[in-house]
């Protein structure tokens, strides 16, 4: 059996047909396969929530890259998750205008409410809390994103409104 054939079957046991079709679609306007590295990582993450070692290796093979090289790309970018995350990622803005608006104490309230610090996921797997560079909504500071939703003018009340029905059980 040829090597190429073996590799092909490896890949297709990990990547879905849909994922491969989406990567191929990107490749239509990209002159080199490795050029779709970030797109491919995003495509796989969109369906699976994160990029596992297995996925990473399959993508690397699919794009004729070494997995080390792709790992270097994946870990560079903060919106590529190399560890499992909760159902929703909280991207908490701690840049300057939000800081002036008191985001440090709001971050504390979130941590107290959900029982997580940066980089951690709630026990019920609903939320992962991460810091993010300035979200570009400084006139409505402090702000954060929960999943795809931008939430502005944060204060303690708003935090408890958003998360109170969703407590992770780590209450103190």
């Amino acid at each position, binding site marked *: 059996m040829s090597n190429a054939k073996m590799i092909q079957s490896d890949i297709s046991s990990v990547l879905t047909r849909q994922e491969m079709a989406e990567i191929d679609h990107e490749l239509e306007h990209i002159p080199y396969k490795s050029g779709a590295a970030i797109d491919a990582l995003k495509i796989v993450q969109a369906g699976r929530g994160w990029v596992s070692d297995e996925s990473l290796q399959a993508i690397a093979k699919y794009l004729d890259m070494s997995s080390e090289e792709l790992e270097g790309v994946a870990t560079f970018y903060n919106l590529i998750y190399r560890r499992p995350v909760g159902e929703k990622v909280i991207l908490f803005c701690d840049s300057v205008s939000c800081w002036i608006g008191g985001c440090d*104490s709001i971050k504390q309230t979130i941590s107290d409410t959900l029982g997580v610090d940066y980089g951690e996921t709630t026990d019920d797997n609903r939320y992962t809390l991460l810091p993010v*560079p*300035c979200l570009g909504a400084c006139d409505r500071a402090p702000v954060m994103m929960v999943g795809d939703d931008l939430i502005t003018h944060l204060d303690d009340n708003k935090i408890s409104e958003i998360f109170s029905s969703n407590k992770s059980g780590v209450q103190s």
Partner: protein
Amino acid sequence: MEKVLTRNIEPGKAPTDMAAYEANGGYQGLRKAMLGMSPLECREVVSASNLRGRGGAGFPTGMKWSFVPMDDKCTPGHKYLVCNADEMEPGAFKDRLLMEYDPHQLIEGMILSAYCIGADLSYIFIRGEYVVAIERLREALDECYAKGYLGDNILGSGFKLDMYVHPSAGRYICGEETALINALEGKRANPRAKPPFPQVSGLWGRPTIVNNVETLCNIPHIIDRGADWFKSLGVGEDAGTKMFGVSGRVKTPGCWELPMGTPIREILENHAGGMQDGLQLKGFLPGGGSTDFLTQDHLDLAMDYNVIGKAGSRMGTGTMIILDDQTCPVGMVLNLIRFFAHESCGFCTPCRDGLPWTRQVLEDIEQGRGKTEDLDTLEYQINYIGAIGNTHCALAPGAMEPLQSALKYFREDFERHISGGCCPYHSGKGA
């Protein structure tokens, strides 16, 4: 004042679709160019308009484009136009508004700009968190293909252009144009050495122009109404209007389109409503997190590139961050340095190792462990990390700008932290 960039944007109003955009004069510039102007003629209008890049550096747009090889001077192959919609500068929030509420204005600007440089492929490189803008731009692109404003033979002119929305996977450094190009190529976003400049060898080694969202949004109006009209919009030295923003503890933070050269005081008092009750203005960063502080003494200056430059700072993005008298300047600078240290791409040592060192010194001072010698250490770091040429890109020198000016204007605050052994502001935000 005549609204140009925001003429379709009203808070609370629905975003502009194709029908609404065209009903208000949209795609007139495109028609004018496709039906009767050569790329060179269009480029000459843009050069004559004195439009300067709105991404931060203020480089004249027409001149930037003039370095792109044209016609038989260019080897066969693609040329690229890239819109920089990465907007992650701390305190910058203008491009989001333009894209969310009037996506067609940006797209028309991009089609025209691509025509000027002979590009056949174009990308909107947009930060992944801008989910609403990404969706609206994609819808608008579909409308353009359906109308024949994109694709082959645009409006029968023979000009061909494809356009893609490319959501980024994060990191502030992607806003630097050569790092952005590496990100578009699927690589780690380390900046590239210049020369060669992207205009000659950019994406995939081909001629590439990277322009900011707001820069590109000006192009349809300049082509439609001419260079003299555009120049007449400014009230000072510079041409056109500008998206100016104010954040911090003012009464009504926001973003407004105003003439270039509008005095800072007018922006702060008439538009941002002045300081919140009980607070005084202590200083401000005029153009985002990597510009030098200015103070009360500079309020009557015009927001023009050279005027702000002569005062020791930069226009940057034109979005100001206000420091009030009850917020700790050391804490504010520490927040900024922490940001830049975190966002360093790690490629060169003065930035990768220097910024965390600066952060450490500032943390010590802010938390009451500072020593008098620390101020000398900060001066050393400013001179070394801040010097253009010691680092591979402008991130690290930009990071030093708020610090160096804070030491100049608010030195007493640093000294009080050191002599008192604690943060004198006690606002709870300093730690």
